[in-house]
């Protein structure tokens, strides 16, 4: 029977891991992920999981251990955040290149420095081109469900691509919500037994992994790697559909979720917990007679370019919310991706980019409302006050003063 429990996002994901019961889990603490692995270690101590818990000495080792055990043929997981993910960076690319379907929850936190332990998306944005699937979660329920679905997506033999399940540091990881934990047996049946595409411990089939690869084949191997992530969109949709049917779930199982978009003239794109705030703002604007809508992006990699372009093409104005700065680039990473997706369609809306929430800076409805004010003005006059804005900054950033 499904159980409704009061859980933090970290605990909810730990429950997903308990139900997945991987063969190997590499553990290393980092705020705000620590309480997730702590909860999972409790499950292990209580005999609720029978996995091998490997206590490693760094995140570089955590991902290395996970790669090693997954390549050996064991379903393997780890979890991290922020600078921990940064330290894993080298091995992230190895995991995806070896086509190892590792699933890793990442509790999104800013990168140092200055040192800050709160939430933003700078960490996983640094790993966006590492060949991993990135699923973003709006709340604890989605983080729990995305973790379960990620196993099926990553392990699908057409995909065989590692996946990150992203949840906002503190807002989701430490906030307590009502979370439906589905029946253990039903979840285990949904996930199924791990069937590795290859395993180094198969003595009957000796093989070498990670050999030197020069200019005669490296490029070919990297291009072949595209097969997995390029096959993943259909599998993400299939798995989402099956999950919804199996568990009668009510979360987002698509690439993105549309809110009030049927007749919308203005819309806001966001990822993670901010999506809920964005919907409140849309309601407020609708009450005032403004045709506003919202798009919550769940699948950030592979980026659903064609679908996004179609969903946004009829708008007059668009706000793209970015919880990270792409230094030296055009605003934030989501903005860059959305603008690329919209290139070539002849009805591109007026697009404004807003950076927000770095280092846990609060994002409230009034901030998104102020962005809509600027958008309405920009659409009316044809001239945006600024193309890239910074919400809830103590003073407006003025590029002209540089």
């Amino acid at each position, binding site marked *: 029977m499904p159980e409704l429990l009061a859980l933090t996002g970290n605990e909810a994901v730990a429950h997903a891991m308990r139900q997945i019961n991987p063969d190997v889990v590499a553990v290393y603490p980092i705020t705000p992920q620590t309480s997730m692995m702590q909860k999972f270690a409790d499950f292990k101590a209580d005999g609720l999981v029978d996995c091998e818990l490997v206590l490693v000495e760094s995140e570089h080792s955590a991902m290395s251990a996970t790669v090693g055990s997954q390549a050996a043929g064991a379903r393997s997981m780890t979890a991290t955040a922020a600078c921990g993910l940064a330290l894993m960076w080298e091995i992230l690319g190895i995991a995806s290149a070896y*086509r190892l379907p590792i699933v890793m929850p990442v509790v999104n936190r800013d990168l140092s420095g200055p040192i800050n332990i709160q939430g933003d998306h700078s960490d996983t944005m640094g790993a966006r081109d590492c060949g991993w699937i990135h699923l973003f979660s709006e709340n604890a329920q989605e983080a729990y469900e995305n973790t379960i679905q990620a196993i099926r997506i990553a392990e699908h033999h057409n995909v065989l691509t590692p996946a990150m399940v992203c949840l906002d540091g503190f807002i989701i990881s430490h906030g307590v919500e009502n979370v439906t934990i589905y029946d253990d047996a039903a979840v285990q049946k949904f996930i199924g037994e791990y069937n590795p595409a290859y395993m180094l411990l198969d003595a009957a089939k000796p*093989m*070498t992994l990670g050999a030197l690869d020069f200019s005669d*084949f490296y490029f070919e*191997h990297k291009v*072949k790697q595209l097969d997995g992530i390029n096959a993943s969109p259909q599998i993400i949709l299939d798995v989402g559909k099956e999950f919804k049917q199996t568990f009668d779930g009510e979360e987002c199982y698509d690439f993105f979720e549309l809110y009030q978009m049927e007749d919308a003239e203005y819309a806001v794109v966001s990822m993670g917990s901010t999506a809920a705030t964005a919907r409140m703002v849309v309601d407020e604007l609708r009450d005032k007679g403004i045709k506003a809508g919202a798009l919550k992006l769940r699948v950030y990699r592979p980026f659903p370019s064609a679908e996004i372009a179609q969903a946004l093409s009829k708008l007059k104005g668009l706000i793209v919310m970015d919880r990270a700065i792409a230094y030296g680039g055009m605003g934030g990473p989501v903005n860059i991706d959305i603008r690329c997706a919209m290139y070539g369609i002849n009805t591109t809306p007026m697009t404004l980019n807003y950076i927000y929430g770095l280092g846990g800076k609060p994002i409230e409805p009034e901030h998104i409302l102020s962005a809509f004010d600027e958008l309405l003005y920009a659409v009316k006059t044809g001239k945006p006050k600024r193309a890239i804005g910074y919400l809830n900054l103590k003073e407006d950033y003025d590029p002209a003063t540089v």
Partner: protein
Amino acid sequence: MMKKYFDANYKDLPLGGLIEEAGNAENYETGTWGTFKPVFNAELCIQCMFCWVYCPDSSILVNEKGEVTGIDYVHCKGCEICSVECPTKPEKAIIMVKKET
């Protein structure tokens, strides 16, 4: 298998850069890398086997009697270690010669 592998397009490559056949490095030609190549002179050789011990690429050819007979140019990378280690005097039994391009 090796022929298939070396002629393969990216589509035919094994998943994840796997090498599915143990010991197939022998079939990978690395002998084109060097600028110099070692040349063996059997008349000067005292069969001390130093070159065979030191060669990092197992490129010193040895017959059934255990005698050095020459160089495996398919795998020799031209590192010169064999020639440096060869003890014969005044002339070494292995000397390095610039390869023709």
